[in-house]
């Protein structure tokens, strides 16, 4: 228990000091994106990892959050920062609807329904030009020139999200979630209102993902339907972050986010310009291999199988 506290304190101290020590905007940017993925990955994990409802459509909530923030600025003329609350709430509202439709289905059918949902939202955002500007997208001017405010905002959000999930999972509700994942019919027979608790899980998950979307709008200051409703870059990425880090562990998605964002940038820049250009073509291949590797050898992700990694790789006996 004590070592755990030390680890948490060290990690917190590291993240608080990081942007003060590393002044480069570039590295701060990568950290901001990684922390944003901590937020999304953890939210996904609550629904998919703990409650067992694997979502292939988290881009829905991310996009709705982002567009809420963007439309606040372009249509209502108020600051896009209001979207940090509004985006979360709008995503919850959409979450209710998605839950109403998709929770009638189980397992793979649920996953497919959410996948279709994501595509539907992307098409709506693309074609409803009078509201969303379609593929022109929404371009805002950033509030801050410095990265520091964004960094601490997203750090706070990621921390809040992890803490919330930690508390939820320690509460009675958390046990209900896990029981639904393990056996929905058994949970039902014990008198658990599974539909209600699945929806609660979805609402918390969509709320934080929506906030992440709103943050993205504020930070990147440009969105279009293909970016924020992207199946590949948002929905699938959320799954990868969860799987690589460790499904149904508190810190798993956080670790996964740093691994995935780090890998993505390493490949995009062709190993920071050190390797030949073609290596950046290989990123999809490497992502694929990584997922296969993780599923075969580390089914519980880096965090879930940490003891195994310690034993096998570092030859440390527990």
């Amino acid at each position, binding site marked *: 228990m004590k070592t755990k506290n030390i680890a948490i304190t060290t990690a917190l101290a590291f993240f608080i000091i990081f942007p003060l020590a590393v002044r480069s*905007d*570039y590295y701060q*940017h990568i950290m901001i*994106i990684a922390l944003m993925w901590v937020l999304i990955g953890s939210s996904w994990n609550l629904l998919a990892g703990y409650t067992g409802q694997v979502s292939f459509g988290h881009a829905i909530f991310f996009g709705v959050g982002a567009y809420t923030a963007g439309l606040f600025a372009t249509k209502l003329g108020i600051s896009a920062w209001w979207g940090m609350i509004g985006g979360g709430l709008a995503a919850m509202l959409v979450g209710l609807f998605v839950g109403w439709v998709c929770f009638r289905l189980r397992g793979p059918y649920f996953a497919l329904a959410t996948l279709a949902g994501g595509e539907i939202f992307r098409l709506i955002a693309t074609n409803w030009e009078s509201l969303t500007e379609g593929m*022109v997208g929404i371009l805002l001017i950033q509030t801050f020139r410095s990265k520091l405010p964004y960094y601490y905002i997203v750090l706070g959000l990621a921390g809040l999200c992890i803490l919330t999930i930690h508390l939820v999972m320690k509460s009675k509700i958390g046990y209900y979630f896990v029981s639904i994942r393990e056996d929905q019919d058994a949970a039902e027979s014990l008198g658990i209102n599974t539909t209600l608790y699945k929806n609660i899980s979805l609402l918390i998950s969509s709320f934080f993902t929506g906030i992440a979307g709103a943050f993205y709008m504020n930070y990147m200051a440009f969105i279009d339907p293909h*970016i924020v409703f992207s199946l590949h870059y948002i929905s699938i990425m959320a799954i990868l972050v969860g799987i690589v880090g460790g499904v149904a562990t508190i810190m798993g998605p956080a670790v996964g986010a740093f691994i995935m964002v780090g890998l993505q940038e390493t490949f995009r820049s062709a190993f920071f310009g050190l390797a030949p250009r073609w290596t950046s073509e290989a*990123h999809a291949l490497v992502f694929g291999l990584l997922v296969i590797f993780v599923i075969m050898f580390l089914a519980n992700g880096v965090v879930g199988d940490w003891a195994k990694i310690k034993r096998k790789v570092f030859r440390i006996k527990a």
Partner: protein
Amino acid sequence: MSKSYYRLFTAFLFVVFVFAGVSQALAVKVGIVLPLTGAEAKFGEIEKRSFEMALDEINKAGGIKGEKLELVIEDDTGRPDVGRSVVEKLITKDNVVMVGGGYSSSVTYAVAGVCQQNRMPFLVNTGAADNITSSNWDYVFRLNPPVSEYAGAIQSLLTEVIKPKSVAILYENTLFGTSGAKSFEKTCAKLGLNVVLKEGYESGGIDFKPVLSKVKQLNPDVVYMISYIMDASLLMNQAKELKLTPKMFIGGAAGFTMPEFQKNSGVASDKVISATLWHQVLKYPGAMDYFNKFKAKYNAATEYHGAEAYAAAYVIADVLKRAKSYKNDDIKDALAATDMMTVFGPVKFISYGAMKNQNKVPTYVVQWIDGKLELVWPANIATKKFAYPVDWLKTWKY
């Protein structure tokens, strides 16, 4: 012993610092944002090669006031969010003095927003959507004409030769596609043509048969397509398979002028016409030279995207030579004062209508004839006579 070791170490440090200093003092860094991977990689490749060719020549001719010009070419992967972070990296980490490149409209628009906010001069190569130069940004300059002007030469060809009554417009659902389709629709209204269908398709789509069958049913005189590269090839291949035979297939530049379009589509590309912004036979100094040099160096044909990039490198060099200093505002002022001749034609950034810092470029029509991209319109400078009317089934060897 330890003393000499210490000396050696000092000497080593000295050498390192000198080299660090020298390499910094002797190169002017300019950032270039291009799609080197992803669906638009072919456009990125032809532009990157042209940039590098021009860079070699510029540096061989003495560089910029005795300093070397260095292009930091970064991959935007065709995604606006990546483009955004890439240009931030160029500005803050690489300390570039200005930014160039910009291929797809979506990416260019996002990058331009960052440049404007950071007061970083940005010379847009290709990104064609109107809003890139109609957002009243004073640090953004564009070599390429806005997409609303792409159909200029096509327009006169339509009224004088093809004389169609109905048009179907197909476009990729991207910023470039939608803005191009909208402005062509306006052109059609102006010419009194009946737009029987205006339909966008998803980027990355591979099955165009449903939309093409719809076109076939409506039987328009002209099919106008605004597409990047794979979609352009697939559209024509599948039109051939469906035996869709309008009077003419017209491409709105971009994918339709690329050598890969002809390679992928083979006979299906034959006799297809496209708007273009450049052709090697135009009477611009060095245009033909550039075409031949490119062919010799890379063993591949080049077209307007490449010419643009090649010209852009020379504009950048010219701007940096004229700039009072490498401060952002001095470079911006030098860009605004640009008035030079390039392989892409005369370059001058003017403001007209809603446009700001926009280069005026006349447009032309090219036609794929026997695997070669021939200039067919305006007729007085054509390299081959416009092949029309076309018996498509015979062209497709049915």
